[in-house]
């Protein structure tokens, strides 16, 4: 996946976070989402469902780990790896 496309994915995720988590505050690509306690359990579930619907990817149990969800960059890389 090209860098531009990766940034597109990251932008989509940032948009979702702005709308559903931070209340219009912009989230940096390297801001910690999990270790900072930003995401509630329900928001975590909704993010996974959003990634599934928006990018057509199915996140497996093995991929549901903190490293893949702790920053926008990490989530975007996960999505990119799933889309090939």
């Amino acid at each position, binding site marked *: 996946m090209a860098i531009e496309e990766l940034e597109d994915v990251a932008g989509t995720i940032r948009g979702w976070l702005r709308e559903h988590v931070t209340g219009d505050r912009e989230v940096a690509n390297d801001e910690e*989402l999990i270790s900072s306690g930003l995401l509630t359990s*329900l928001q*975590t*579930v909704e993010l996974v469902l959003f990634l599934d619907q928006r990018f057509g990817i199915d996140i497996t149990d093995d991929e549901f780990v*903190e490293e893949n969800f702790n920053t926008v960059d990490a989530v975007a890389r996960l999505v990119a790896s799933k889309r090939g």
Partner: protein
Amino acid sequence: MPRTVVLRPYEDRDLPGTLELRPRVYPGWKDAGDAAWHIAVYEWLGRNPVEAPMHRWVLDDGGAIVGHLAAVPLAYRIGGARVIAYTPTDYMALPGYGFHAVALMRTFFQATESYVACNVAGEVSKIEGLFGPRRVAGLHQAVKVLDLGRYPRLPSPLLRPLASVASLGVRAMDAIRIRPPSGAIEVREEDTATAFDPAFDRFFESAAATIPCMPEKTAAFLRWRYGPGTPRPVRLLTARDAGGSLHGYAMIRTTASADGFILDLMGEPGRRDVGRALLAEAIRRFWRDRAFVVRYRFLPSTASPSTADLARFGFRFPGATRGVLPGARPERQLELSIKLADPASQAAAAAPEHWSYNLGDGEASFWVP
């Protein structure tokens, strides 16, 4: 400062941490801080007669317990086969550990082959939903108001005397509509410490022969679930014929806040007269207990009373957006969900009409005050 949260199996040393965690997660639950009661609940869960181990996990943040989940095994009879399925129990995590709370649930679904749960529709069911269970049905809810004057959340205290007078009318009507049956069935209260004999095994096998899906409510299960040591003691009503043969039973409980619960009501399949007789006696007991309301949550089956009988006895059926009691929130919707490893069992259990299920059959009722 970066956190290192470890998800690991529960160990004995985690007891103080989990006892401290509960009131922090559930500040509005008055029993959350009752350490002795919670220790007793886990001792009781450990005596579960099903031959499968309970599992527990914690979230450990640098030695502080910030999350917990247990998996309780229960046996079911599904399409003639015995299935052991797990229910998530005592699920809690502090705010700020949302991802890890979901990870706890993921661990549950990785560690257990089959799952059955009856949850209040909401956050927990959404989290569980991420891991693939199928919703079978919402439990039906029947509510009968006995004495509105004793309802603790009456919108205006001025209404209380009026409501209490109205309850005299309800009681007079009940005296007529719930007269003891003139048939051959006698309903009486029996001691939960000694009553669950092999007749209850025969009753269960006979019911399971015609009802495709139900919890395995053998005598051993009932002794454990409702006998001495149960977290919330109940009263047992049995329906027997003149020869003493068992044709049905009901488990009822009146809480300290005067809520009457019918936790379980099983009549011989097809014998609506048995369901009616048990229902009538339960209402009489609730009047005697000075309960202000009777709540009954169940999936309809040939073993439950009919909707017509419930309506005849004055039960109402709250909808998703309104309650039966004035000023009350809508009754909380309980949903039965399944994820069974065996495809044939999964297919059989996905049909709500295949089930006999009562509130007391599920883990959620273990904690009801």
